[in-house]
């Protein structure tokens, strides 16, 4: 069979055929499992079909089987590079349903850890994207910076990646001693890494050539697809949930929202780099403005008070001196002591667990613990439905929760930001060459846990 001729074509004419290339579920990109079936005319992409769902883990169904606080570990694993933002979004949605609000210090704590999570997300996205284009050193530098931030997160929450830090009605524990210092140091290191990566990539001829002009999308198309976040901002539309529908304490913090112009991969890279800088700025302001927590030293002697000494002081009647102080306890109880509770929880007994000192110390605390932890009891919000959007690293992350008054939610729906972006992937790819799939898919920042839930 003569493959050089199409049937019916004049003799001597070369045959032109389109090729179907399956960039299959198992592929070398570091982003996640997805299937892109591309129809190629030579090197140019003529048509694509995107198939997702390879990481569907049934988040929404599992959320109906556990109680309200039990959903929090599942939310960690949604957008697993910025887990604290998911935690915060879910907890704020349930708090909206309950109609309670947390103290100011708790808001600041949530903002600080959310912004640190946002920085880790952008570091992973830009780093992995750069690695796929050949800039392996940039990936190593950015993962180094991410390690510093993860060590910081571990200091606060106890875990590097899947943190489960926020609770309905507050956070798990207050910021530990020395957090300020460590945080500033980590952010300084991150700034250095960003400066190095900037020097390596932003005016690099190869990087710019591969990223500019590829993966373009217009603002109208982006809005029609429901795209939000850095992707939308790179097309020129300025929409940031933190500015337009502010929540927590974002309305008091000064930060800029970078906006691109052309809507291609290069603009997205620049928007993400600048957003990291703005997030560092937010964290520094928050550290400066955060209302003070209880102090660690005895107000008269200035020494830190061991817990046993505090008990003794109380016994001799020296209450006034120690009532706001925080005793040096076991490191595993760090940040969760009774004196810090008013700063980190909403004050509603039916929602938040009591401090351990109360649980073991008096009957009211024991009953409060029992009523919240026992199977079938727990948080019982009123019947209702609520939608709460936060600014995730990829765009508007919204939680829609329907409650039927029992201890577990009736329906939890998470509006995934990268679902919208992935639905626009055919539009981004058609017209470009097959080699442009790599930078485009990299800048989409598809996170499988969020896309497929």
């Amino acid at each position, binding site marked *: 069979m003569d493959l050089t001729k199409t049937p019916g074509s004049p003799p001597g004419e070369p045959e032109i055929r389109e090729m179907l290339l399956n960039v299959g579920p198992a592929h070398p990109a570091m982003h996640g499992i997805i299937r892109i079936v591309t129809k190629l005319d030579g090197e140019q992409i003529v048509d694509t079909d995107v198939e*997702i*769902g390879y990481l*569907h883990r*049934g988040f*929404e*169904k*599992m959320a*109906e*089987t556990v109680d309200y606080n039990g959903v929090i570990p599942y939310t960690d694993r949604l957008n697993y590079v910025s887990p604290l933002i998911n935690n915060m979004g879910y907890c704020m949605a349930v708090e*909206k*349903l*309950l*109609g309670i609000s947390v103290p100011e210090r708790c808001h600041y704590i949530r903002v600080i850890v959310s912004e640190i999570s946002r920085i880790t997300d952008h570091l992973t996205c830009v780093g992995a994207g750069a690695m796929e284009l050949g800039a392996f050193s940039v990936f190593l530098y950015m993962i180094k910076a991410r390690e510093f931030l993860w060590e910081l997160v571990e200091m606060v929450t106890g875990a590097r990646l899947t943190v489960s830090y926020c609770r309905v009605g507050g956070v798990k524990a207050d910021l530990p001693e020395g957090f300020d210092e460590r945080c500033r140091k980590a952010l300084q290191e991150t700034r250095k890494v960003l400066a190095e990566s900037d020097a390596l990539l932003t005016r690099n001829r190869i990087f710019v050539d591969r990223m500019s002009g590829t993966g373009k999308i217009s603002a109208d*198309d982006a*809005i*029609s*697809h*429901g795209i*939000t976040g850095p992707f939308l901002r790179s097309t020129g*539309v300025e*929409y940031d949930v933190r500015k*337009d*529908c502010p929540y927590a304490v974002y309305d008091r913090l000064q930060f800029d929202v970078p906006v691109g112009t052309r809507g291609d991969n290069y603009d997205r890279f620049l928007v993400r780099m600048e957003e990291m800088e703005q997030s560092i700025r937010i964290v520094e302001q928050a550290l400066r403005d955060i209302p003070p927590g209880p102090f660690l030293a005895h107000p008269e002697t200035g020494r830190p008070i061991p817990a046993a000494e505090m008990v003794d002081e109380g016994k001799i009647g020296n209450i006034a001196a120690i009532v706001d102080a925080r005793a040096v306890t076991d490191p595993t109880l760090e940040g969760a002591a009774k004196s810090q509770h008013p700063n980190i929880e909403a004050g*509603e007994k*039916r*929602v938040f667990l009591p401090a351990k000192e109360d649980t073991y110390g008096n009957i009211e605390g024991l009953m409060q613990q029992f*009523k919240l932890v026992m*199977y*079938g*009891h*727990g948080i*019982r*919000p*009123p*019947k*209702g*439905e*609520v*939608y709460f*959007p936060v600014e995730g690293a990829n765009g*508007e992350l*919204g939680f*829609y929760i*329907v409650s*039927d*008054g*029992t*201890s577990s939610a*009736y*329906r939890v*729906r998470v*509006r995934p930001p990268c*679902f*919208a972006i*992935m*639905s*626009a992937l055919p539009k981004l790819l058609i017209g470009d060459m097959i080699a442009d799939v790599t930078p485009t898919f990299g800048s989409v920042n598809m996170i499988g846990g969020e896309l*497929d*839930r």
Partner: protein
Amino acid sequence: MNAASLIQAVKDRFPAGVKASHSYRGDATVILGREFLLEAARMLKEDTLFQMNFLMDLTAVDFSTFGTKRSPAFFANSGIAVSPSPEIPDADPWSGPPGGHPSAGAAPGTPGGHPSAGAAPGTPGPARFVVVYHFFSLPLKHRLRLEIPVGEVEEAEPEVDSLSSLWASADWLEREVWDMFGIRFRGHRHLKRILMYEGFVGHPLRKDYPVNKRQPLIGPVN
């Protein structure tokens, strides 16, 4: 526009279609009949009063077991009644499931009782599913939630109009609702499963689908 004026504006345009409305916790919500969906969505997108250029989210809720969950009866044999704490009271309570409470005859909002028995066959009961749309307007910065009750009559696959001609985001979102709930969308270009695989039988997020009923492609059912 604030929640109340948004709801009023929608009611003025569709006096016959709007079945109910509320603004529970400040979210403007309108419950609309399914025949009016396409028209209302077009109006929300194009009218200068609304300018809803974002279809943020499209999802569904299965209300068939709403309020029927019974608390576990610990120590039931011993005679000690360990009842869970009552719900946190609400100054402005919710009006109940949009399609009507599953226990027909009970007023909406009362604690759930038993599934309705004795309703005359063929009469529309409470709607089993509610398709929920979240709209957002970027120029005017307001949000609206539209709820369409479907499944009043016992049908395997309730149908609603598709909004994919107005917003491109509706394409994949409707495919997901079809996959998870089995609600069809008229006018969708290609309604096929998106999160589950083609051989999967059933719709996982329906309340009658058990959470760990596995249908593996290869390997044992474990």
